[in-house]
């Protein structure tokens, strides 16, 4: 029997998680990525940098976020006790800000005056615009035209924060195209620009550094669970688009063998319809946006369009660490479709008075299925990665209500 790997020892020096990850970009960006990696490796062990990061997380973001026992909902589900990691209570309303705080600190250390970001649901765009406003940095957010329509409130928030929202009209006009456009901007303005990638994808070192910044979620949850439940959780559940909230929760638990983990992808209209955003469930390995990972692609290696009610999960790729954890079998990747996510959105709102983001509602939907199969003395932590305020218009539209 082979010993299990030390999950926390990855990526390797060149940014690989097994066959996944790496740095697949055009030559113009290689120097910038080398520079970023060197700076990050230096700062991540620098006590002053860590202290600055922790200070901002405590006083600006409002961390630690609570681990909340959803008692009424757990009772209704009739199985394991379900705890919610309340990333929705963070400043700006989602986990995204943990990462933008970290990357903005890096940008400051590197003397960059201009930041760019891609966004799908707008949460990462808002989180980027927020830290840019605070540090006085020029901020441009690339957003697909389709997402701009779906997420009007966040677009306006970004504008109020002083960011320039750049509509992306190429391809499927969603998150992947926004990322293409951000890469193009970065190649053009590489000298003075810091690219704040919003998820654990992209070329090395992004999947590593975004994970490290988001791992605060899992570190807190682990400590809180030991204290509040008296033991480690039996299962973790998080939604996976690019996968930053999921890896943030999972990573500190990876070497805890007894903790099961479920990453929930967006099944859109259903995996069997082909209209979904679930590369780990129904895709295959390829190279996009600077890393090798599971992708939604056709037989000719062209990336295909994804479908999900949630703009933040509407992405054809996934972070390379997730691809690796899938192949190793450490994390189970499952999917929830639009209907299941919407039902979960309504249920959690009605039963607990907590309105999840449609992205997070996918995790809630899986917890609904999982909890009844477990014993009452078992514990599940669901990452409530964001709040649902931004999705009210989408849900209202589905209900046929106009404001």
């Amino acid at each position: 029997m082979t010993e299990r790997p030390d999950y926390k020892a990855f990526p390797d020096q060149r940014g690989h998680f097994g066959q996944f990850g790496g740095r697949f970009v055009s030559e113009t960006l290689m120097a910038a990525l080398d520079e970023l990696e060197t700076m990050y490796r230096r700062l991540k062990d620098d006590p002053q940098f860590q202290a600055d990061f922790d200070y901002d997380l405590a006083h600006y973001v409002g961390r630690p976020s609570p681990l909340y026992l959803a008692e009424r909902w757990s009772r209704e589900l009739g199985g394991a006790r379900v705890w919610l990691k309340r990333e929705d209570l963070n400043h700006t309303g989602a986990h995204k800000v943990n990462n933008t705080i970290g990357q903005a600190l890096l940008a400051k250390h590197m003397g960059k005056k201009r930041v760019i970001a891609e966004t799908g649901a707008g949460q990462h765009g808002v989180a980027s615009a927020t830290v840019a406003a605070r540090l006085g940095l020029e901020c441009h957010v690339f957003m697909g035209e389709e997402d701009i329509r779906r997420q009007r409130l966040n677009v306006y928030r970004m504008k109020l924060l002083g960011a320039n929202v750049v509509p992306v009209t190429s391809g499927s006009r969603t998150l992947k195209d926004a990322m293409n456009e951000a890469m193009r901007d970065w190649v053009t303005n590489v000298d003075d620009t810091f690219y704040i990638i919003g998820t654990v994808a992209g070329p090395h070192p992004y999947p590593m550094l975004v994970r490290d910044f988001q791992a605060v979620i899992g570190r807190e949850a682990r400590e809180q669970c030991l204290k509040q439940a008296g033991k480690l959780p039996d299962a973790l559940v998080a939604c996976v688009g690019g996968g930053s909230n999921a890896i943030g929760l999972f990573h500190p638990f990876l070497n805890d063998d007894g903790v099961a983990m479920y990453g929930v992808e967006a099944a859109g209209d259903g995996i069997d319809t082909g209209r979904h955003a679930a590369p780990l469930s129904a895709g295959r390995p390829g190279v996009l946006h600077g890393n090798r990972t599971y992708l939604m692609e056709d037989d000719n290696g062209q990336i295909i369009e994804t479908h999900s009610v949630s703009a933040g999960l509407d992405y054809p790729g996934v972070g390379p660490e997730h691809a690796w954890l899938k192949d190793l079998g450490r994390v189970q990747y499952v999917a929830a479709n639009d209907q299941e996510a919407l039902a979960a959105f309504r249920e959690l709102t009605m039963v607990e008075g907590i309105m999840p983001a449609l992205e997070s509602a996918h995790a809630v939907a899986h917890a609904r299925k999982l909890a009844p199969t477990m014993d009452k003395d078992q514990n599940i932590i669901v990452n409530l990665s964001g709040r649902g305020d931004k999705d009210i218009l989408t849900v209202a539209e589905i209900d046929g209500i106009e404001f």
Partner: protein
Amino acid sequence: MSRIQDCFARLGEQQRKALIPYITAGDPTLEVTVPAMHAMVEAGADVIELGVPFSDPMADGPVIQKACERALRAGTSLTRVLEMVGQFRRDNDTTPVVLMGYLNPVEIMGYARFADACVAAGVDGVLLVDLPPEECEDVAPLFRERGIDLIFLIAPTTTDARIRSIAAAASGYLYYVSVKGVTGSASLDVNEVAARVETIRNLAQLPIGVGFGIKDAQSAQAVSRVSDGVVVGSVLVSQAAEHEQHPEKIAPAMAAILADMRAAMDKP
């Protein structure tokens, strides 16, 4: 000797510089590409870079992005592009053809299968924009063993140390990207290019082609004076857009642009 080496050796003897057009294969139809390749050779092209369309061309500006969209709509795939090269080779056994594109279509076809198909079709070199030398150690031998040149980009941001390692991994020629940006963007600064090419020459033995920002006969001439070859892309590809409804006009329009450049470059 490979067709690419042969080509640069011959040009060297004649004290001429390589004219290297890039077009996106299958743009806007599958039928236009092979006749366009022949017309470009006729007009003075020395090497042809044939673009393999990709759904997410991250290093390209709007002109080539739209070309990719048109080509994919027309049904172009990597397999089809290889067939085009095979068809071109029936009438031309000397002009080198380099396939240029993104990694994923190759990744899905499989590296060994792709390299075999390149040999069978008569492809001489491969330039994969998002495959830096660091990531291709495992697959590079598959191409080398088959005599396919791996061509790499060097950017304004590339350090001297990287130029050395890129040159060690590359064969055929080096492609110097003259501006920071995507294809078809800013205009280049000839003096800056001259200085950079000089630096690369001191660190690498291969011929150096320069691309990005070459728009007309004048810029082609200026760049040819300081390098071994001139790569021209967006200005040709924009002809496919302009004549999308009259595809028969595309090859002559591309040829006319290249003929002007050729004449300017060959002026003593």
